[in-house]
């Protein structure tokens, strides 16, 4: 596939107009930087010709951090000062990161707003700062190789990264003075690297199995426009889990001895080494030195390994099936692209080929393909290429919504919506005289607030006092091309307005996100029953609250004694039912009480709207209508 030929002859801009743009793959285990030069895209090596920079930073020397292979070599000597796999901590709260930290032997401190910080010999460091140190090295490398200031960078993130993780990544780049042209989803970048032949048309699936995450994306390329149709995945499934499966088997094979933490680490390292060799050999010896006092080795055949990892590979195929369904294709997939170190495992390749009925494309090095795609996109965004070039239309991975009564989430922008996106929804007050509305923004697929990720909260104030249900509050979600969210709320009658750029300050662990996603599928029925009961309870309490307030305010004036008694009897009955679980009974009583109080509500509504509009001049009313 013609990857390297980008500019057509005679099309490239004059040399003095060419801007320097780079693509960065900020990976869990390794990071790379790439750029388009003289019409071809390549990885920029360091001064001794090495392309991959291990995503490891050591802070033992207080004068300056050591990044990459040098830091990696200090990992056993200075475990707490040598930070690895920091990507897993990006945008995560310390509460959620504890398990990961224990596994990695880090010391944590509570940072601002509950964000996690690592304690090192040179002081505290946040994951954003550590990532910035990695980015700084790549930035320097680009400056040296490209010979001048960098005009902009595209940085890749896993498609399943949420708001907090995206924002943290952008912050890291800002810390080193890099201008971020775009955050780009890793699988999309891989598709761009492969799809460069703009003449090419068709549907591409990108299967990305890295060290810690699995992503699947389905895209359509049509006349230079790349449309992401659906994405799916698992933020806690990767090469690490293959290592763990093998390590577990070895332990059982040796009679399940109790191991010290150091021995565990050694076992996992040995398992990983054996796993990687099994990609080329049919049987290998797994070295037990440092694992068991007796040392020695155990033989692992590829057959054994395959049987161990089969359930994990099947899990990725489940995600593929869901993604295919979400993409709603009329025909099949034309090409399947493999990304990530773990796609070197033969069983993974075979299973994927079998599932999609296509031989996967592996022409481009799976370690490099993401950075190469990012560099191409950076070159386009910075304006080096002519009009009519490749355009990318990406989607959001997780639904965005707000909390409504009873701890329920109302989805406003569903997952797989093309970005940029703007969606508005109207809400109303639920209490008489309510002048403020708390808005709680959430991300996730489940129906209850407690099962989704909280992104931000804000309040819309100065709503004019009206009866419950009369105010019209329009909440608008705007998601930009980086997948970052901005929310505004506006009361339509007075124009009271407020907005926030969502910058989440606490979060969930990857395991929790995966669990959330899986649970959203398997708990659908349970959710529904819980939701129905919760809804009916909310409706019931709302009705009671409303009627209570209304009766106190206008009961005497607008109703006769008999009507008041009838209402009160029903209200007491409903109150008793609300303590129980009988959804249907609550529902039918609400209906009855609603009908019973209809006339009363109508009389009050008339009165209240007349009062609310009384203070507003006709001019300002016109303004509202115009907008």
């Amino acid at each position, binding site marked *: 596939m013609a990857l390297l030929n980008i500019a057509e002859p005679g099309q490239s801009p004059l040399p003095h107009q060419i801007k320097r743009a780079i693509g960065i793959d900020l990976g869990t285990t390794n990071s790379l930087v790439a750029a388009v030069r003289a019409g071809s895209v390549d990885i920029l090596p360091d001064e001794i010709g090495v392309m991959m920079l291990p995503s490891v930073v050591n802070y033992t020397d207080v004068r300056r951090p050591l990044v990459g292979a040098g830091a990696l070599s200090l990992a056993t000597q200075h475990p707490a000062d040598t930070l690895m796999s920091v990507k897993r901590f990006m945008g995560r709260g310390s509460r959620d990161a504890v398990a990961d930290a224990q596994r990695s032997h880090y010391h944590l401190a509570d940072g601002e707003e509950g964000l996690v910080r690592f304690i090192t010999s040179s002081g505290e460091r946040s994951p954003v700062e550590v990532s910035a140190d990695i980015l700084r090295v790549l930035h320097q490398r680009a400056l040296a190789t490209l010979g001048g200031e960098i005009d902009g960078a595209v940085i890749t993130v896993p498609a399943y990264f949420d708001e907090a993780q995206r924002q943290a990544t952008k912050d890291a780049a800002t810390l080193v003075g890099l201008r971020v042209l775009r955050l780009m989803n890793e699988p999309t970048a891989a598709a761009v690297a492969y799809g460069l032949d703009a003449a090419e048309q068709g549907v591409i699936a990108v299967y990305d199995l890295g060290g810690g995450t699995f992503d699947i994306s389905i895209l359509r390329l049509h006349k230079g426009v790349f449309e992401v149709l659906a994405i799916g995945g698992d933020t806690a499934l990767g090469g690490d889990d293959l290592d763990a499966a093998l390590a577990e088997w070895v332990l059982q094979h040796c009679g399940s001895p109790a191991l010290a933490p150091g021995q565990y680490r050694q076992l996992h390292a040995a398992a990983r080494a054996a796993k990687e060799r099994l990609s080329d050999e049919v049987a290998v010896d797994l070295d037990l030195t440092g694992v068991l006092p007796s040392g020695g080795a155990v033989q692992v055949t590829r057959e054994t390994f395959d049987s161990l990892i089969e359930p994990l590979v099947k899990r990725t195929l489940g995600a593929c099936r*869901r993604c295919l*369904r979400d993409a709603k294709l009329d025909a099949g997939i034309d090409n399947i692209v493999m990304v990530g170190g773990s796609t070197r495992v033969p069983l993974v390749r075979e299973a994927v080929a079998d599932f999609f009925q296509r031989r996967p494309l592996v022409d481009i090095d799976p370690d490099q393909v993401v950075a190469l795609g990012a560099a191409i996109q950076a070159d386009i*965004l910075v304006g080096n290429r002519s009009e*009519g070039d490749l355009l990318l239309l990406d989607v959001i991975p997780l639904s965005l919504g707000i909390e409504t009564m009873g701890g329920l989430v109302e989805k406003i922008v569903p997952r797989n919506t093309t970005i940029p996106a703007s969606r508005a929804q109207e809400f109303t007050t639920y209490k008489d005289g309510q002048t403020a509305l708390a808005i709680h923004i959430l991300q996730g697929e489940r129906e209850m607030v407690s099962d989704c990720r909280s992104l931000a909260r804000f309040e819309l104030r100065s709503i004019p006092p009206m009866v419950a249900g009369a105010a019209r509050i329009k909440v608008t979600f705007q998601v*930009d*091309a980086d997948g970052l969210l901005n929310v505004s709320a506006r009361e339509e009658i007075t124009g009271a307005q407020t907005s926030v750029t969502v910058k989440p300050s606490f979060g969930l662990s990857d395991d929790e996100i995966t669990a959330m996603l899986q649970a959203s*599928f*398997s708990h659908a029925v349970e959710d529904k029953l819980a939701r129905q009961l919760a809804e009916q309870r909310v409706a019931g309490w709302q009705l009671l609250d409303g009627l209570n307030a209304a009766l106190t305010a206008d009961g005497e004036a607008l109703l006769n004694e008999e009507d008041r008694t009838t209402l009160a009897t029903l209200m007491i009955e409903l109150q008793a039912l609300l303590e129980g679980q009988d959804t249907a009974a609550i529902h039918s009583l609400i209906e009855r009480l609603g009908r019973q109080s209809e006339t009363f509500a109508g009389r009050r509504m008339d009165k209240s709207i007349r009062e609310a509009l009384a203070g507003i001049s006709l001019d300002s009313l016109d303004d509202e209508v115009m907008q």
Partner: protein
Amino acid sequence: MSLPELQKSYFQLFDLPENFALDQAQLGERYRELQKELHPDRYASGSAHEQRLAVQYSALINEAYATLRKALPRALYLLKLAGMSKEDISGQKVDGSFLMAQMDLRENLMMLDETGDPEAALEHFVTEIDVDVKQLHREFSRAFSAGELTSAAGACVKLQYLEKLLEEAEQMESRLIDNQN
């Protein structure tokens, strides 16, 4: 930068006649053309103001595309253009026999787990609903072109029921996929 006028309807935005029947190829073609001009990527090195505008316009086009591409949102949008409010539409009464049939279908769906081959049964279920969906599309199309807005709205309400059912079928499918693993 040429901007689409917000006063235009989504159909005008895509140079399409205001019909239920729609040329998907042209819709897609025009969508890509518009995004090629207005997407924020085209203004990545432009001013902050340009970028903000691009986000807004590009989002508008995405919304318009999403509305027209699928039958039910397109039908609802046509009714809106014809002056019907959400309440007008949701207030349409659905006949009892349709509701009874819905209840039966939902029950069947919930029992699919227990059949010998739930996947095949689910596929059959979805195919059958699709037949009803197509029938309602024809009904909407006929009623709408004849100017019978009330019966067109009635067809939409029925479609909403079926859409819900299909959503539930999808959740069921996800559960089946999970259980296999």
